[in-house]
């Protein structure tokens, strides 16, 4: 497993790198956004860890967006600056799968890295499930999602979210269950994760994201996938 760490603070990226190496990861270290993006293309890592505030004209959010344009590689944001929920949501909206706030303990950091990689891998091992109603076509095994016949890129987290909802189609999935199944047990309190991802997912698969027909919100409980095919 290869992890790309982009952080302008040398002390931090060295420490994180040393820890990950000890845990058996391959590590690539970069000091600014542009360098990081080049390394991403050259090294093809399994996971990217991005600091947000970086010098050199390209911050973490931009790097994340550029990565998302070409790949579904899981991205973890690591920021010292997060003050409000809006900052977190902004990061997630940029396509990150995880948003961590400095300072974080190394053990927790490693646990989160592992959980994120697990999530990305787990998707492909799901049992076969195909949904097709003409507008939306999902093949879980082949990780293929088509909307109106056109292939749609989903990030690993988005895909995992859709998979969980589809498996429970017709039933309400409580928020905490969703958090636990998609992100992991440690995440059950990060209630804004589903909110952000659901809205991104809607933008990608719903005919009209403002009036969703597939992913419905059960107020104060959770979300429900509504089938429109005839099984």
């Amino acid at each position: 497993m290869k992890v790309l760490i982009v952080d302008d603070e040398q002390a931090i990226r060295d420490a994180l790198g040393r820890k990950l190496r000890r845990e058996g990861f391959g590590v690539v270290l970069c000091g600014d956004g542009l360098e990081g993006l080049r390394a991403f293309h050259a090294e093809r890592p399994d996971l990217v860890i991005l600091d947000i505030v970086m010098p050199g004209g390209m911050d973490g959010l931009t790097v994340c967006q550029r990565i998302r344009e070409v790949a579904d590689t899981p991205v973890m944001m690591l920021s010292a600056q997060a003050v409000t929920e809006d900052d977190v949501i902004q990061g997630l909206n940029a396509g990150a799968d995880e948003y961590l706030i400095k300072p974080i303990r190394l053990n927790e950091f490693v646990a989160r890295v592992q959980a994120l990689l697990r999530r990305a891998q787990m998707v492909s091992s799901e049992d076969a499930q195909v949904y097709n109603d003409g507008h939306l076509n999902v093949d879980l095994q082949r990780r293929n999602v088509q909307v109106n016949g056109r292939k749609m890129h989903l990030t690993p987290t988005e895909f995992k979210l859709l998979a969980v909802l589809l498996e429970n189609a017709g039933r309400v999935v409580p928020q905490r269950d969703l958090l636990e199944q998609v992100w992991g047990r440690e995440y059950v309190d990060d209630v804004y994760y589903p909110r952000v991802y659901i809205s991104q997912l809607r933008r990608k698969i719903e005919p009209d994201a403002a009036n969703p027909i597939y992913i419905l919100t059960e107020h104060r409980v959770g979300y429900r996938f509504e089938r429109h095919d005839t099984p």
Partner: protein
Amino acid sequence: MTGLTLLINAVSLALALGFLLIILWQDSRKELNQFFAIFLFLTVLWNVGALLTQMAVMVGLETFIVRFAVGVLELGFIGASIGVYTFASVLAGTHLQRFRTLALASLVLVLAYRGLIIASTPPAFTVINETFNYRFPLPSIVFYLFFDVVTAFTVWRYRRTIGSRLLVGAILLFVGGQFMAFLNPELSTIWLSTSISSVATLVISSEMLQREILKPLASRISQVEAMNRVSLSITSQIALDTVLEEITRQAVGWVDADGAGIFLIQGRELDLETVYELPEEFLHVRVPLGEGVVGSVARTQQSIRLVNYARDWQGVAELPDAKETIGSMICVPLIYAAKVIGVLMVVTGKHGRRFAPEDARLLEMLGAQAAVAIAHSRLFGEQRKLTEQVEAGRSQLESLLESTENAVIAVNRRFEIIFMNPAARELLALDETLPSKNVLRALPRAVLPPDYRRALRDMRQNRVHIYEITLHGKVFLCHLAPIGRSKAGWVAVVNDVTQLKELDRLKSEMVRMTSHDLKNPLQAAMANLELLRDDLAAETNPEIDLSLTMVEKQLVRMNRIIRGILDLERVKTGTLTFGVCRPARILKNAVEELKHLADDQHIVLETQVAEDTPDFQGDVEQFERALINLVENAIKFTPAGGHVWVSAERSEDNVLFSVRDTGIGIPAELQPQLFERFFRGRQKGAEHVSGSGLGLSLVKTVVENHNGKVWLESTEGSGTTFYVSIPALSLQVAE
């Protein structure tokens, strides 16, 4: 000659009787009229007697008839002399009390006595050459002399009081006429006497008619006119002193007095406010209530008339040398709204006229008018003073508002603009002519409160509502408050806070940057510390281990301080994400987060949520943070083995959270500063507790953001309870 005399006599008496009838018809109860009637009746009796005698003699009738006629004549004669006396003394006002009864009784007595004498010894008369000779007996002369002399004296002495020269003359003529009867019987002066008396009676009667009916009628008309004039002249004055002067002038003119003054009540005294035709040095003479004529009048609310001041008044004199200088006096209370406000005093000099009851009556009428005029003038004066004060205050306030740079706009209950200062016009780019008086239409939406219901509720509860306006790229803070307590409307004061806002933004930015810059080294230090621990895991050196633990603890503490600053900043500047908050859920989350901390410190953490605890509206995350801070505090300040209870319940329309501990308590002197930023109470037993001093400041900010209240009760040594009260979600909204 005799026939003519008879005719004149008869006509005179008939006329006199006619006048009498008119007078009695007009007022038969009046003492003067009654005595006049008696006098006239007796004069008629005398005349009838004279007539009968003359006729009897002329016709040459029997002697006893002549004797009877002479008897009637004599009774009438004596009666008339008594009658004229009683009439004159009533006229002059010298009669005593019960005079009527006394006079009538003595009249009856005298007449009865004379009648008996006449009956027993018939009058002796002679007729020589057809001339009737009669000599009055001595008792008649004595009676006559007694009464007629007294009458003449009285009339002359009190001629000013009687007031009519003709009347005085006529009475004197009558007396003189009676006197003629004694002159010379041979000259038949008795007939002349009768004629003179008849004429005098006629004059008296016509004067009485004049006096009792015609004059009063005329004077009533002139009184009405005068009253009208007085009202006009008094009420046309506005200033109190001119009103008072006018009243005194009118009073003196009305009753033909020599001077007048007005006392006004001031506290427990009467103060001579105005004098007219009286010495100036009398001004502001003070008389206590109840003393002097003036004081008595003010106390009893009854007017007093003193015909002779020196004689009739035994009390304290209100003016210097009063007994020596004042002749007659009338004091009339000035009553307004059933309260005496002063006394009108009218006087004559020692040799001036004496006041009649009529004068008092007139002055009472004047007094009533005067009181109203004085009261109104005072009210007007007070009102003018008040108006001036209000006007002064208003202009002061207005110039203040005009010159201030803050925009000020006031509206009434109908949302119509009632005031707008130049700053407000400039800010809103409005000229003098408003597009509409209604504030909702006249002003752009951007400057109006975003939520009317909330604004009204805030003003009802806190008397102020504050909201932000962005206009022309500047930021303003608008304070909205009700005008006074009278629900007159609302006033908005707009402050330019652009600079403050910018400063605040810079401060926030700096806090963010600083925190960020601190967090990176902190992260690096903490990460390397962990790596070091991993590296040293194999070795067991307690010294090194202790040092590492200490370094870690300090780093964690530093982190907590930074987090505290950032949390507070976030709460202060961040927008609230309002949602429905379940107290039970919040409590559960808060306790879960702190469970291990409590366990570590061997503290029992218990929660209790009453079943009827209502939901409330708020930012779940922020509120959880606040509650966590409170519970964390409680745990930190409670010694091992202690207890912390966290509960939620309904309290009227609020949700009441309480966090109670068995901790060390907070001294009363530290309590007021407790919620201030960076406040750390140096307290015995709490030296080991670490903290940023930001926790409670955050709690306060969050609670206030939720329109709630936070307070505490603490007993040193036995524990502290923090309370947080938040308005509950009303049922209508929840459903």
